[in-house]
């Protein structure tokens, strides 16, 4: 199988200072890759390199290449404008570290992006919204208050709403920046099992700060330190918790 994302020789600089350097990484469909590393090591920046969101910030430079292979179609290096920016970002969905709900109703948070970027209307729209909310296990909590403001949801509910919003757009690649950071144990477990279900359909790159979570969901773990990928581990390395902890401690 072809990797969906091939990052090679990636370097990202903010104000002339390298935040990521010499990154080589491939992501395969059907697998969850988890990115771990100390705070400030460049995890979020690496995620944003895949949907070109770093360009949003002032004085950011990106070198190297990120090529995509989506649904049997090769798109080449996204930094060579081989794919329109808005298409790219719709196919590469991202959930932020802190939930970024729009200041509208719960319903509109999901339907408006679908209307604007996909052009969906009518019952198809409601259907997709319902499905997305059910997938993230939020439907029962919000089905009676779809019209109330998304800002009234709790932090964990907001995070699930953001995940639902991304899923509704049906991307092919999912970038998740600590998707369970603000969730309680139970909702975190729900999201984890959701991710395990989703991985059949998506290529997933997630950031996690929890080693136990990483062990539960990751097919592969990449350790980032000071902007460089210093180690990769697969399921075999994680099988034994002692070995895994030893490897992680060595890495951090």
């Amino acid at each position, binding site marked *: 199988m072809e990797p969906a994302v091939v990052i090679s020789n990636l370097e990202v600089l903010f104000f002339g200072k390298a935040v990521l350097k010499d990154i080589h990484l491939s992501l395969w469909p059907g697998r969850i890759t988890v990115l771990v590393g100390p705070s400030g090591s460049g995890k979020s920046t690496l995620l944003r390199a895949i*949907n070109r*969101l770093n360009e*949003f910030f*002032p004085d950011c430079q990106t070198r190297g290449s990120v090529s995509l292979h989506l649904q049997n179609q090769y798109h080449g290096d996204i930094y060579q404008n081989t794919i329109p*920016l*808005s*298409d*790219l*970002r*719709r196919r590469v*969905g*991202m959930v*932020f570290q*802190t939930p*970024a709900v*729009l*200041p*509208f109703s719960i319903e509109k948070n999901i339907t*408006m*992006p679908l209307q*604007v*970027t996909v052009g969906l209307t009518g019952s198809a729209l409601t259907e997709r919204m319902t499905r997305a909310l059910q997938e993230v296990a939020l439907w029962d909590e919000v089905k009676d*208050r779809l019209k*109330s*403001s998304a*800002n*009234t*949801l709790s932090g964990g509910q907001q995070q699930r709403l*953001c995940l639902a*919003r*991304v899923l509704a*757009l049906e991307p092919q690649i999912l970038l998740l920046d600590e998707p369970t950071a603000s969730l309680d144990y139970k909702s975190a477990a729900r999201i984890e099992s959701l991710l395990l279900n989703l991985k059949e359909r998506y290529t997933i790159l997630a950031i996690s700060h929890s080693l136990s979570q990483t062990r539960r969901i990751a097919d592969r773990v990449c350790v980032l330190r000071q902007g460089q990928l210093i180690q990769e581990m697969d399921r075999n390395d994680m099988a034994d918790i002692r070995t895994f902890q030893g490897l992680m401690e060595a890495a951090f």
Partner: protein
Amino acid sequence: MLKINPPEKWIETGLFMAAVVSAVAIVSILLLLIYFCLPLFSGNGLSRVFSWRWQPIDGQFGILPMCAGSLALSILALGIAFPPAIGICTLVHVLSRGVFARIVLILTHFMTGIPTVIYGFVSVFVLVPRIRSLSEAGTGFSLLTAAITLAILILPTIVLVCYTRLEQLDPVLRLASAAMGFTPIQQMRHVLMPAATKGVAAAAILGLGRAMGDTLISLMLAGNAAQFPGSLFTSFRSLTAHIGLVVATDSQSLAYQSVFAAGLVLFLLVAALNLIIRKTDNRITANAFLRVQETRHEQNF
């Protein structure tokens, strides 16, 4: 208990005094206007002032044409200024945030400092002849001429208030909508503008108030005929210009007294606009408050 040290106390007293003085000033202006209008309430003064004919020689002192003129002028000016103001905000907020945006903003700031008379003056030479040739009949001093010039005058106010509100929005909104594949225009239309509705409305009403209160532009460009502004190309007179013209030429008759009625109407119109701004504010905060209460309940049960 916190102990308040003397300088802080003085500052507090000073600020309190200033607030009292401004409040008293505004209330006395209103009372004074009402006092001067009192004679109108005796006899049939009122019906003579609030009528459609201003012909002092025949004893007709109606200010309604001027009220209509002021309303038509300010609404038209806002209508002309608002779309480009939103366009400029979009340009500097989402389309180009670099040097170009900074230059546009500096120019906009600069525009607020240009004396009104310059706009009027330039307009007399540039705009009036063009409007005249456009309308065939008429002098070119018309509703449209004054409204276009006034639109240029209030444009920077609207742009700056809008822009400030947009900049106050959480930057995550833009980032999140960009990450979903929204183009800059879509970000503005579907996320940023709706999120800043309150600010955009406040900017528009502020612009309307500024247009309504302006005197010089209409005095110089409207032609000042005391008649109903029936078309874009008719000459008309605004309330402000009316007050200026009458006060400058007369000081005794009912004409002079009717000026106070004009002042009162103007004062009340502008006060109403301010109230509307406050109302939009309050309604939104009240809604937010209710929603928070609502969720509290849901969480409790």
